[in-house]
Structures are given as C-alpha cells and as structure tokens.
C-alpha cells in the first residue's frame, strides 16, 4: 500500500506545485483536443494544496471536492490513476465510476470526495468522530471553497465540530469565485475566517499564494488541533486563475483583476523567492520541469492505454 507523501523542503513543495500545474494544464489540453472530458483545475491555488497537505501526517484524513487534483497529487496520488479516472477507465481510483468530480483514494486517506458543494463539510465531522472514538491523535483536513461557505452545511458542520470537540482543520480556499458568480456578490464580508467567532473557535486567514506561509499556518493549526481536539478554520486567500470548468471562456472575469492575481502566482512567487535567496538555480528548475512533464506524459500513456470498465460493472458496488 502506498504511503502518503510528506513534503518538507521548499524545493519539494515547489516541484509538487509544478507537477499539479503541469498535470492540470495537460488535462485542459486533453479536453481541448477532445481526448478527455472537462475538469475543474486548481491553477493558482496550488499553494493551499501543497502547503496544507505537507503539514499532515500519514494517519490524517483529507476530504476534498470537485477541485481535487492538487490535494490528491500533494498527497502522493498516482497521476496516471487520477487521469484514468477522469477518462472513465477501469484503472482509475474509482474504476471509472466517479470521473473527475469525486475522486477518493482511501489508501492515502483522501476519503469521501464529493462534488456536491458542501459535501466534504457534511462528512468531515463524521470522519473526525471516528478518529475521536477510535483513538489516536489524527486529524481531518477538510478542503472547501468560499462558495461552500455559503451553504447551510458549513454552519452546521463547523458548529458541530466546535461543540463536540472534533479534530477538524477546516481549510477554506477563498478563490474569489463560485462558478460564474463573484464571491463579493454572495457575502458582505471579505474573509470567511471572520465567521469562526460565531462558533467560538479560532479562525485565521493566510496568503493563499505563499506556500510557505500556508504550510506554517497549517502546521501550527494542526499541532494545536492534535492537542486540543478543537477545530480551527484556516482560510487561504487566493484566486481561481482559470475558468470554473474546462472549457470556460472567462468572459465574465475582469481581465485586470485576473492579471493582478496572475502576477502573484504561487509557483512564480516561490521560484522568484528561492532564486533570490540562492536556494535554487535556474537549472534546478529546468530539471524539475522536465521531471514533472515526464511524469505527466507517463500518466497520459497509462490512462490512454487503460481499458474502459466492463458493462457488468454497472451494477456492482451499489450495496455492500
């Protein structure tokens, strides 16, 4: 059984963010070429995935949603099996029954992925209750969007975790968009973390484009949750650089706003910082780029050569 990855060094985090970017941009290319169905990408949000997941231990659990490739890859999932799932192949993590929208990888602790906005919030408390009652100090990291924070289940989930002392790190990736709706059309507040007080728990907002800041904040929060068993709401303030789903012409997006955020791209940001510090060289980056592209190419080959599921699979896995 594969072990979840632990990414500690800045260069490991950088390379993983580059892998996520390459993987998702390749998905877009496959979609544009008609070789794969559309997907939701996390382009611009890789720092949240890598920063938080790098702070988790091997027994911790992750819940995620429709925009999950980053979380999965940060955790060490096989890009080939993710892509096979996206392409509906039987070698996909869910045998092709999921498709891109709800990929779970139980063996890595990435469980119960749901594309119902708020689904991960529904389920996180239960996973944490199991952890609580079955012992140990593991925690649940629950990734959701600013849109999910508008759903009633956000309120119910965070409140229950608070009163039941459940070990959940709620990670709200506030990417300023909810499909085709601007976040500021959906709430009067700017930071979702300001809602934490209403549940009597700690909330904080971190620069979601700075993977090291995210990692530091997440590590602190997770350490605290392991001790106190109380939930914390961590918001990564960031931006969705591509459309909601591929393809999406983004004609509803203000190009200036987008450009300003692209300039703060988390991968570019870390590259520049490390180059400036001298902790990485241009050649190192080139080598990384080659490696991630090779990984993606292998994934494509694996997925494209994988068979579709047999029709008999239609009615298996319905009941236990």
């Amino acid at each position, binding site marked *: 059984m594969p072990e979840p990855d632990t990414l500690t060094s800045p260069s490991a985090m950088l390379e993983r963010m580059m892998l996520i970017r390459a993987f998702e941009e390749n998905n877009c290319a496959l979609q544009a070429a008609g070789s794969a169905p559309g997907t939701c990408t996390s382009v611009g949000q890789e720092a949240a995935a890598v920063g938080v997941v790098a702070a988790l231990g091997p027994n911790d*659990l992750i819940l995620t949603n429709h925009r999950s490739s980053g979380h999965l890859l940060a955790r060490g999932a096989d890009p080939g099996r993710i892509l096979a799932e996206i392409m509906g192949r039987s070698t*996909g*993590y*869910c*045998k*092709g*029954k*999921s498709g891109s929208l*709800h990929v*779970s990888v*139980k063996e890595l602790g990435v*469980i*119960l*992925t*749901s594309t*119902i906005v*708020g*689904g991960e*919030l*529904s*389920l*996180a*408390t*239960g*996973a*944490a*209750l*199991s*952890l*609580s*009652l*079955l012992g140990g100090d593991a925690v649940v990291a629950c990734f959701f969007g600013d849109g999910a924070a508008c759903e*009633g*289940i956000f309120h*119910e*989930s965070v*409140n*229950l975790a608070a*009163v*039941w002392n459940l070990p959940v790190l709620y990670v709200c990736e506030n990417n300023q968009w909810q499909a085709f709706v601007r976040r500021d059309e959906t709430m009067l507040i700017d930071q979702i973390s300001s809602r934490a007080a209403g549940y009597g728990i700690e909330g904080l907002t971190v620069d979601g484009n700075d993977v090291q800041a995210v990692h530091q904040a997440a590590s602190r929060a997770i350490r605290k949750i392991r001790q106190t068993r109380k939930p914390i709401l961590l918001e990564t303030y960031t931006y969705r650089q591509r459309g909601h789903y591929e393809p999406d012409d983004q004609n509803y997006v203000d190009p200036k706003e987008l450009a300003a955020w692209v300039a703060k791209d988390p991968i570019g940001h870390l590259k520049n910082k490390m180059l400036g510090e001298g902790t990485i060289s241009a050649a190192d980056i080139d080598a990384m780029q080659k490696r991630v592209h090779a990984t993606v190419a292998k994934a494509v080959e694996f997925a494209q050569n994988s068979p579709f599921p047999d029709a008999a699979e239609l009615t*298996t*896995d*319905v*009941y*236990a």
Partner: protein
Amino acid sequence: MPQMIVNQAIAEALAEEMRRDSRVVMFGEGVATKRQELVAEFGKARVRNTPLAEAIIAGTAAGAAATGLRPIIDLLFEPFICYAMDQIVNSAAKLRYISGGQFSFPMVVMALTGCGWTVGAQHNHNLESWFVHTPGLKVVMPSTADDFKGLLKSAIRDDNPVLFFTDMVLGYQAGEVPEGEHLVPLGSARIRRPGTDVTIVSYAKMVHTCLQAAEELAAKGISAEVIDLRTLKPLDESAILASARKTGRVVVVHEASRMCGVGAEVAAIVAEQAFASLKAPVVRVTGPDAPPPSSYALEQAFMPQPARIVAVAQELASGEHPHA
C-alpha cells in the same frame, strides 16, 4: 413469550446491539435526554444529543460510517428528513458506488411518521417510496413489536444505510417478542394471515387495518391472504408473486399517497410477473394525494379504512370490479 410495547422492543434492540458492538453509536436531537438508560450503560461518547441540524446529523453519520463506526441517528419525524436528503441520498447512498466500492455506509436513520396523532403535514408524511426509489438505500417499516426488534437489530448489523420508519401510533402497541437473540432478516415479507381468494399486500400500521378487513371478509366467505412486507427495499418479490399467483387477485394497501408509492411498485411487479395468473384488476387502496391534515376528523378520513378494503376485495372476488 414476553409482551412488550414497540418502543420497548426498539429500546432493547438498540441496547443489545450497542452492547454487542462497540462501534455502534447513536445521536440526534434529544437522544441522550430521552435515552438515559443508553447513556448510563454506554456513556456520553456513544450516546449524544446534537444541535438542531438534521443535515449534519446525517452527514456525520455517513462520514462516521465510512470510517469505522456504525451510527444510528434519530431524525424524529419523517418530514424533517427533508433537511438531510443530500447527506442520505448524495453521500450515504451514492459514495460507495462513486468511489468504486472503497467505502461502505453501515448506518440506520430512524424517524416517526403516519396518521393518528393529529400532528399535521410537517410531522407526518409517509415518504418511504422516495427511499425505495433511491439506489444504495434499504427501507424497513415494521408493524409488530417482534419485527421492530428483530428488524432493527438486522438494520444495525447491515453494512448499508437503512431507513427505519415507525408509524407513530404503533409505539405504544404491545406484542409478543421472543426471548433472547431475535433477528429478522431484511428483505423477507411475512404472511400475516393465509388465504386463497385474494391477496392483500401492506406494511406498517395498515397491516392491522388489513387484518381487520380480512376478518370481515372471512365472515362474508372470502378468504384473504394478508402479506406484511416489513422491508420495502429490498422488496420480497417472490413472496408477493407466490401469493398473487395463488389467488389471482391483489389489493395493495398503504397510507402514503398513491402516485409512485410502494403500491405502484407492487402492482407493477404483479402486472408483469404474475400476469398469467391474474383474474382481476390489481387495485391500490391508499391515502389521498393531499398532505396529511391535523384535524382528527380529517386525519381519520386520510387513512385507508377496513370497509374500503373489504369492498374492493369483494368486488374483485365477485368479478364485479368496474374494470374487471
């Protein structure tokens, strides 16, 4: 055999299964307050009150079920389940399939329903057919104390989400319950009264109404077989078909509204698979296409009554049904 009321049978099933398996936990609004005996025996960690929040109660159950616990939740009255449909249908019922079989969801959702307490349409709405229609779920709706106990124990041991519905007036109805371990398997109907002229298929408290009708029919020389479905999903098709093929005449009785109800399913099964044996139209006797009213007078009128069942069965047996 000891006599006990249905509520007692339920309480025994819960306690026995919690004793047997430490992964069984129970929570809901007032569960800890109302089930002090479970708190006393199993502790506050396993028996919990919750905030008023049906969606997260069900979601927590689903999440816990997928990760090693076996939760039982009490959502009180069936209409309140409307707040938890996403968690039950989109998560608990589907995520096993969606994940390619990575997870299972051993959980039980309990709720009350049915006419008799004049509580009106927001506490009383027989929604069982919604869940029968939904892949990934099981549905149980017993009629007698022994079955409440035996089926609830089986539901708790089942590895799938089970909706366990109690007709609210049955709670205080007494019946014999076998001593010791008493399990009733899910998916098996029970012949409540054997007969040869007409089959009456029903479930939950309507079974008692049907038995009364069968008694009256017997006095008129008509031998009615009464089948108590007990589990609505999986449905015991072979029990229904065996009786339909024997009598050739079928009446289905339930309190839920008619359209797309369990009666429609039973009628459709019979019309396909027992067609060659049918001697008469398959007739449904059900509640009307209206929300359940509160006023006692109207609420009684909502429920199928023995007289109507008797009249239908007589028409069928005599060949005088308008569509015969």
